[in-house]
C-alpha cells in the first residue's frame, strides 16, 4: 500500500516538475522592467500600475525587505537582472551606491528634491520623506518632552519604547553621533537604557503597545499612527509629537530609488523615476500613504506640519549606508 502511495506521490511530483519547467521556460524571455522594491506591495503597486497603464511599460516587481534586497543586489553584482531598486530607507540605497552598483541620474531628476534628500554621488534620489517623531498617549503623557534628553528623566521611567534593531532607529542614532559625537551618543543611550526603556522589534509594535497601555511614549516614524490604526480598523489613542526645533529626534529620513548599472532598460527606468517624482504622484503619496512629498515643499499629510516647517536637524543621509559604528555603539550599550 505504502509503495503505491509513494509511487503515486512521485508521479504527481514528477508531473508538477515537468509542468513547472514548461511554464518556467515560457516566462523566461520578456522585455519588461525589473524592479526590486523594498516598499511594500500595498504601498507602491497602485502607482506602478498607473505607470503601466499610462506608458504601456511592463513592470516585473520583486518585493522584499529593503536590507535583504540590498544584500541580494550586492551578491548579484554585475549579474543582477534588476533595473531599479526602490528602497524603504536611504541606508540600503547608500550601501548599493557605495558598492558602485548604481548608475548616475540625470540632473533634472535629481533637482526635483532638495540636495539633502538625495545621494551625494548623484546616483539615487529620495521620493518620499518620513519624520522621526515621538508617538504618545495623550491621555497618560501630561508633560511632553521637548528634547530627547528629557527621555532619560525619571517621569518616563519604564514608559518609553524603542526599536533598536530597526533601521529607522539606527538612522536616528547615526544622526545623533554625527551631531553630538560618539561619547555623547553613548552616554545618552546608556542613560536611556538605565531609564528602563522597553525594546521592540518594529515601530508598529511600539504604536500598538502605546494604544494597549503597555507604554506611554515611543520613538517611531510619523506614519505608523495611520498604519496601525488602519490595521486595527479603528481609531487609536496615540498622537504624534515633535521635539524642539533642531533636535535630532525630529530627523527626516527618505525612501528613494536608484537605477542599477546593469539596467538594460535605461529609458523606461528614467521615465519611471520622473513619474514617481511628478507633482500629481507626489500629491497622491501624501493623500494615500501619509508620507511627506519631497518634491512639493508645502504640501503635508493631514494633521502634520509641512516638511519645511518640521524643526528637523540637518543630517547627511549618505552616512546611513554603514551603520556599523552605530551598531557597535548599540551593542556596547547592550541594546542589540
Amino acid at each position, binding site marked *: 500500500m505504502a509503495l503505491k502511495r509513494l509511487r503515486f506521490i512521485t508521479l504527481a511530483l514528477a508531473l508538477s516538475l515537468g509542468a513547472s519547467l514548461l511554464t518556467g521556460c515560457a516566462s523566461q524571455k520578456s522585455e519588461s522592467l525589473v524592479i526590486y522594491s523594498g516598499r511594500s506591495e500595498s504601498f507602491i503597486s497602485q502607482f506602478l500600475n498607473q505607470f503601466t497603464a499610462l506608458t504601456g511599460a511592463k513592470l*516585473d516587481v*520583486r518585493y522584499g525587505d529593503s536590507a535583504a534586497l540590498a544584500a541580494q543586489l550586492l*551578491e548579484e553584482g554585475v549579474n543582477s537582472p534588476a533595473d531599479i531598486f526602490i528602497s524603504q530607507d536611504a541606508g540600503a540605497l547608500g550601501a548599493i551606491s557605495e558598492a558602485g552598483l548604481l548608475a548616475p541620474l540625470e540632473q533634472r531628476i535629481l533637482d526635483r528634491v532638495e540636495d539633502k534628500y538625495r545621494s551625494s554621488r548623484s546616483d539615487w534620489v529620495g521620493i518620499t520623506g518620513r519624520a522621526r517623531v515621538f508617538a504618545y498617549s495623550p491621555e497618560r503623557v501630561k508633560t511632553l518632552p521637548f528634547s530627547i534628553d528629557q527621555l532619560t528623566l525619571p517621569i518616563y521611567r519604564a514608559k518609553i519604547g524603542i526599536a533598536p534593531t530597526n533601521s529607522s532607529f539606527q538612522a536616528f542614532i547615526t544622526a545623533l553621533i554625527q551631531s553630538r559625537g560618539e561619547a555623547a551618543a553613548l552616554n545618552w543611550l546608556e542613560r536611556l537604557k538605565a531609564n528602563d526603556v522597553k525594546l521592540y522589534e518594529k515601530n508598529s509594535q511600539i504604536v500598538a503597545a502605546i494604544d494597549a497601555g503597555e507604554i506611554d511614549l515611543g520613538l517611531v516614524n510619523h506614519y505608523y499612527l495611520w498604519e496601525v490604526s488602519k490595521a486595527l480598523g479603528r481609531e487609536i489613542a496615540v498622537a504624534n509629537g515633535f521635539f524642539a526645533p533642531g533636535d535630532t529626534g525630529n530627523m527626516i529620513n527618505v525612501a528613494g530609488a536608484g537605477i542599477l548599472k546593469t539596467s538594460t532598460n535605461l529609458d523606461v527606468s528614467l521615465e519611471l523615476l520622473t513619474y514617481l517624482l511628478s507633482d500629481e504622484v507626489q500629491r497622491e503619496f501624501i493623500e494615500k500613504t501619509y508620507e511627506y512629498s519631497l518634491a512639493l515643499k508645502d504640501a503635508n499629510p493631514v494633521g502634520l506640519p509641512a516638511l519645511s516647517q518640521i524643526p528637523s536637524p540637518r543630517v547627511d543621509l549618505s552616512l546611513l549606508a554603514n551603520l556599523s559604528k552605530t551598531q557597535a555603539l548599540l551593542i556596547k550599550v547592550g541594546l542589540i
Partner: protein
Amino acid sequence: MGQDSWAKRQSRPSITLIAASLIAFLAASLPLFYLFRRAIDAEISEISLILFRSKTLEILATTLGLTIAVTALSTLIGIALAWTLFNIDLPFRSTLQALVILPVAIPSYVFTYSWISLIPGFKGLWAALFVLVLATTPYITLTTLAALRRSDWSTYEVAQTLGLNGLQIFVRVTWPQIKNSVAAGSLLSALYVLSDFGAISLLGVDTLTRAIENIYRGSFDRSSASILALILVAISALVIRLEERSRQRLHIIKSSNRIIKRAKTNDKLKVRLIALFGIGSYLALGLVIPLFQLLSIFLANSTSINYSLLFKASISTLTAACLGALIALALALPVGVLSAQGSRLGRVSDKAILIVHALPGIVMGLALVSFGSSIPWLYHSLLLLSFAYALLFMAKAVGSVRSSVDRVPKNLIEISATLGLPKSATFRRVVIPIATPGLLSGTLLVLLAAMKELPATLMLKPIGFETLATQMWSYSSIFRFNEAAPYALLLVLIAAIPTFLINRPDKGDGIGGDQI
C-alpha cells in the same frame, strides 16, 4: 538490529549511490563554501570586534541555553504525546495523531504574533521557550510515533509474561527501540531553534541568528555576518555530534515473522481522560488558540478576500514545496542509504546536510543568489527555489531515510538473492517498500517546512510568483495581520492534507503501521 540489516551487509556501495551521494554532498557544501568565501574577506579588526565583545558571549549563552531548554522540553512532551497516542485507546486516535503534527505548518512568526496579540507584553526568553517548544514538539512526536509503530511487539509480550509493569516495560523494552528516533527528532528541534528568526525577533531574544540578521540590516557587511554564521555552523556541528554519539546500535534481533498487533491498550477511563486532557492541552496551545486568534483578528476587521489570489498562491506554494520535497528526497535517499551502510561519504554528507539545516534562511538565500545569479536561465526560476527548499530542509528527511534503511532485515535480502534478483532489483523491490513509511514521513516534514519558508523564497522566487508565505508577509510586514490571516489559515489547511494522507485513518496505525 544494525549488524543484521541489509544495509550493513552491503560490502561495496554501487557507483550510482556514490555518485548521487556526491551530488548531495556538493549541494550541501554550497552554502558552507559561500560562507568561507565571504568570511575570508573580513578584516582582522572586524573579526575581533565581533568575537571579543561581551555581547557575543551573552548571545552564545542565550543561543545555547534556549536550544538546550527547548530541545529538552519538546523531547519530553513529544515522547509523552507519542506514547500516549500509541498506547492508550482514545477516540479519533488517528485524527489526533495527525493533528499533533500540524503545529509544524504554522510559520513561527505567525504563531508568535498570534500569542503576542493575545497576551499583551508577551516577550522575552520565557515567551520564546514557550513558543518554540510548542512549535518543535511535532518533530519528536512524529519520529517517536514512527518508531513505536515499527517496534517489535513480541518483546512486549515477553516482558508482560515476565510480569514487568508499565514503567519497566517502557524503560527496558520501549526506550531502547525508540531512542534513536527520539534523538533524530530532538536534533531537528535543536536545529530549528538555532535557525529560527521569526519567533526570536518578535519576542526580542538575542540569538546568533538574530545577530546575523542584524548585521545584514545595519551595515550590509556580509563578511562579518558570515563569521557569525560560521560560529552557528560550529555550534550545530557540536549538536549533531552529540546526537550521533547518543545514537546506539540496536541489539534487538527482530523476528522475521513479526507479530503485527497493536499494543494492549489501556482502557481505564481515568487514564483515558488524563491522556485526552494532555493531548487536548497541547493542541489547544499549539494549534487551536493561535488559529482561533488569527481568525478573530481577521473577523474583527475583515476585508474582502481576493479568492483568485488566494487560490493562485496555494497552487504556487504546493508546486514549489512539492518539487522541493521531491528534490530533497532524491538527495537524501542516497545519502541516507550510504550513511546506513556506514560509508564515510554517506556519513560526511549526512552531517553537511544537517549543518546546513541550522543556517538562517537569509544566509541560504544569499548563498544561492551568489551561485545562481551567474546562471541566467536558472536564476529566479522555480527550479532554483525548489532546490533552495531541498537544501534547507532535506535534513528533515535524511535521518528517517537512514533509520528506515537500517531496519531492512537481512533474511529478506537473502531470499531475494536466492530468487536470483540483482542488487538493484532487490533495492527497488525489497528495500524501498520496507523503508517507504519512513521516507514518507521525512518527505512530509520537508514539504511542511518548505510551504512556510519565507526569506529564501523572497530572494529566489520567480518574479510574480507568490506563495502563501510571501503573501502573508506582504500584509504582516505592514502590520495588516487581518489581511494576512486568511493566508495563514489556508496554509495550515493545505498542510493538513498531506499530514492526514500519510496518517490515513483506514490504515490503522498510519505511518509505518502497515509495514514490517
